[in-house]
């Protein structure tokens, strides 16, 4: 199929195209120079054209997400999606059903989404759900920092063997990157405990969170993985934790070689100043200052949007604290030799002091960090709010007026404590394109995504708004409305959304990395792992491995390691 998108205003930051009026040609799923006269023409004049969105951190599939769905029938009752001739039925709201997730992302103009935390032992479940998320391309990060085999190797200083094990597990379980969640702390949660600093000991492994993070950062480099380590800090959700966040970033500074080597995720949740919930203030200015001065760091926001949320993380002890604070229902799910997840429903309220501070932190980070290529838009869906609210966040970023409107309605004490009222930066469409697709694709090293150059995947979003006429600062509501429902979303060269409705559905790809490894080394590692497996797991090594045929549409990406 050939498509010609005519006369749109194109924002394609990777190719340095900033609102140029131009045509985009599509053939066989790719962007091409030109198409024949029979191509389907989409008249995009007066419209905004961007690459399809790339979400670097969202909870869309697997045991944790599904536990959230089961835990929260009340989340679904009022938000239903009837079956149509094209689409399956489903439900929302903060934890939507699988099909609904795919459709809603597509309607926003997003075409690639990463599940942010898959415990290895349950990754088969993650893939079974990913298979049932239509339209978008997807993959998952594997949680590896509290994994006993990793901890064994790291504590013995066996970096190369650990690297080989991680190469093997990414391949065996079809994952994309190394996820770190409260390193060391989650292992201690096995005993109902936690760590408090980067230098606490984690018995019986005789290792510290700092050593785990540094070890995995080195391994990431040895393996030459497409993404950096993707890290959820220690002390998440605790007043004063911005210090831990900066300390963690600083812990790998010396390992960097000019490029980013650590991604710290949902920094809103680890950007708290003060010492208690009463003295709480934003730590965003300090973090932003650090990030501005240190090119080895990227972050995403975890921006709070007020309203219903479902907190779900691989940080069991954090979720335990949250259930004590809220009294809300709580699910805890430990995974043998690997970690622990928790889920607590939550409602972010404007008038609540803590929630209002949290809201300011995310926006301060986005506005105070100067380089948009290193700060990405997320709500840590559904932790700080559902991904469907991204257009609201974009409006806040593009308009001081939108921010002021909300600030009028938030807790007064929180407003007084924030620097936000004095920040007058407003994002441009170009910068929005960076933080929602170009920079995330780059951070994931997905070279065919996040841009519209010849050869790129034809994943394209077209929004019904004229960027040359609209003034986002004043008319932020118009922008917000247009971004909620794409005029067209094109995925792999097929029109999947028209006028905000799904017009076609199919299964997207699941991509994963296949790190190269000398055969001898792989054999040796497998021999050792097989021994450990008998001791550590209640399943056999053979049954832990996920066959490629278990993925609906598998695409492996070979990575040349220095193993």
């Amino acid at each position, binding site marked *: 199929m050939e498509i010609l998108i005519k006369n749109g205003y194109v924002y394609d930051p990777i190719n340095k195209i900033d609102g140029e009026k131009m045509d985009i040609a599509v053939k066989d799923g790719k962007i091409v120079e030109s198409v024949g006269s029979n191509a389907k023409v989409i008249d995009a004049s007066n419209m905004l054209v961007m690459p399809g969105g790339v979400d670097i951190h969202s909870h869309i599939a697997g045991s944790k997400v*599904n536990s959230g769905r089961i835990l929260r029938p009340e989340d679904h009752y009022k938000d239903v999606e009837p079956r149509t001739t094209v689409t399956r039925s489903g439900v929302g709201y903060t934890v939507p059903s699988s099909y609904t997730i795919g459709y809603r992302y597509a309607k926003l103009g997003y075409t690639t989404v990463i599940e942010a935390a898959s415990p290895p032992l349950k990754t088969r479940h993650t893939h079974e759900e990913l298979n049932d998320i239509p339209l978008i391309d997807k993959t998952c990060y594997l949680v590896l920092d509290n994994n006993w085999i990793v901890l064994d190797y790291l504590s013995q200083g066996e970096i190369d063997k650990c690297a080989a094990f991680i190469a093997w597990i990414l391949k065996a379980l079809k994952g994309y990157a190394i996820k770190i969640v409260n390193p060391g702390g989650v292992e201690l949660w096995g005993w109902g405990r936690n760590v408090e600093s980067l230098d606490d000991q984690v018995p019986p492994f005789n290792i510290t969170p700092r050593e785990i993070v540094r070890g995995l950062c080195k391994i990431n480099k040895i393996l030459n993985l497409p993404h950096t380590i993707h890290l959820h800090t220690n002390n998440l959700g605790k007043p004063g934790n911005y210090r831990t966040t900066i300390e963690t970033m600083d812990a790998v500074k010396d390992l960097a070689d000019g490029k980013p080597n650590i991604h710290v995720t949902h920094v809103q949740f680890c950007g708290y100043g003060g010492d208690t919930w009463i003295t709480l203030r934003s730590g965003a200015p300090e973090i932003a200052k650090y990030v501005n001065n240190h090119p080895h760091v990227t972050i995403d926001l975890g921006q709070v949007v007020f309203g219903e949320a479902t907190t779900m993380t691989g940080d069991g002890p954090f979720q335990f604290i949250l259930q004590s604070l809220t009294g809300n229902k709580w699910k*805890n799910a430990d995974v043998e030799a690997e970690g622990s997840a928790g889920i607590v429903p939550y409602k972010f309220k404007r008038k609540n002091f803590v929630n209002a501070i949290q809201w300011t932190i995310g926006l301060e980070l986005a506005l105070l960090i100067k380089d948009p290529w290193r700060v990405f838009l997320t709500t840590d869906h559904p932790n700080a709010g559902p991904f469907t609210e991204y257009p609201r966040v974009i409006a806040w970023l593009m308009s001081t007026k939108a921010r002021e409107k909300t600030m009028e309605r938030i807790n007064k004490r929180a407003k007084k404590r924030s620097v936000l009222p004095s920040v007058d930066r407003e994002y441009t469409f170009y910068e929005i394109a960076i933080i929602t697709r170009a920079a995330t694709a780059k951070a994931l090293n997905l070279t065919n995504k996040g841009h519209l150059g010849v050869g790129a995947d034809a994943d394209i979003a077209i929004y019904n708004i004229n960027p040359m006429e609209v003034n986002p600062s004043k008319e932020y509501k118009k922008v917000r409305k247009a971004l909620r429902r794409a005029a067209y979303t094109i995925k792999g060269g097929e029109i999947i959304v028209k006028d905000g409705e799904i017009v076609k559905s199919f299964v997207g790809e699941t991509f994963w990395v296949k790190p190269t490894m000398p055969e001898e080394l792989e054999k040796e590692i497998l021999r050792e792992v097989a021994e450990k497996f008998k001791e550590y*797991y209640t399943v056999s090594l053979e049954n832990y491995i996920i066959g490629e045929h278990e993925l609906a549409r598998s695409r492996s990406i070979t990575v040349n390691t220095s193993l």
Partner: protein
Amino acid sequence: MKTISNVVCPFCGSLCDDIEVDVENGQVTKVRRGCAISIAKFTKYGEERIYKPRIDGKEASLEEAIDKAVEILANAKYPILYGWSCTSTEAINVGIEIAELIGGVMDNTASVCHGPTIIGEQDAGISTCTLGQVKHRADLIIYWGCNPAHAHPRHMARYSAASKGKFVKGRNERKVIVVDVRKTRTAKAADIFIQVEPNSDYELLTALRWAVKNGELEQPKIAGIPAEKIEEIADMLISCRFGALFFGLGLTMSAGKARNIEAAVSLVRELNNYTKFVMMPMRGHFNVTGANEVMAWITGYPFAVDFSRGYPFYNPGDTTVVDILTRGDCDAALIVASDPVSGFPTEAVRNLAKIPVITIDPHETPTTMISKVVIPTALVGIEAEGSAYRMDAVPLRLKKLVDPPPNILSDEEVLKMILKKLKERVG
């Protein structure tokens, strides 16, 4: 002869995955490491088999049986689709799409066993874990209203009381408490047996929680147990390093039902202020957990999903199949890998017998006897592969060990054929 190792046993929610079988001439001839249930089922799966599809009791071709099933389902106004706990996750997934397409009710056997557990969890949450966590860390284990020695024979040795873990090395390093109305085989092997009065589990759980929180109890006796005994147990619970509460239908189905689970959740939650504590239902059918999981990811709800409005609607007690049948509201039924005629209340069975029933099952059962259409299928985990979820929601892949009998397809394949034809008809 060939030997196949690391076989996942598809006969109870423990899904032991270390079974070794010998296969000779297309038959399983020997089973190693399986429990008595496993060995019996693996070697006798050929008994009571159905080899030919039937319509109205008469042999029919697969094509005819499928056409008849499609006709019944396409014409039904409010069909029920029930069973699912003894088949693969993939087959259940197809079943959900059929239910959605024809506006039926999709329900699984959880609705008549651990349904109250799920409802209790939806009200209060749950602190749980995978079985390996218990194996490595639990120095105190409670079995409440369940009898693994009988129903999950390898559970205690592989995963719980007698398993060997990293931190806790075996049975003598664990305290085992059994709470039940009678002295079961599991109770006989316990360190402490608490014989609770029938239907008093809620009182006992509440008293335990009180004792954990406040120390002393006011009443001399609760649920037939002296206060001192309850206080002693409470002290044990607080002072363990890692506690695990396994529970079965004895708790879920005794008076109070979902409220019992909420009381247990509250107790465990309270205990987590002092130590680490988890709980887990002992799921029976090998993939009942998978049925709940896949229904939840496709529809948002783990069982009792009504598609008659065009979208998933969930209201247990109303959209649960037993209730629908008892009211006599449905006009056709698709039963997959289940035998409701043997298990359902009389009134529900009477109404089931009045409507056209399509049954997909490898074996002859009382339900196949009353069915208008019977389609025999392969046994997943023996004659077909597929995914299944252990009781702790660890997903495993069931293997195909031997070929099914001639012309016998898997549940998944048969359901896909039905779906395809239904789509052509209903659009």
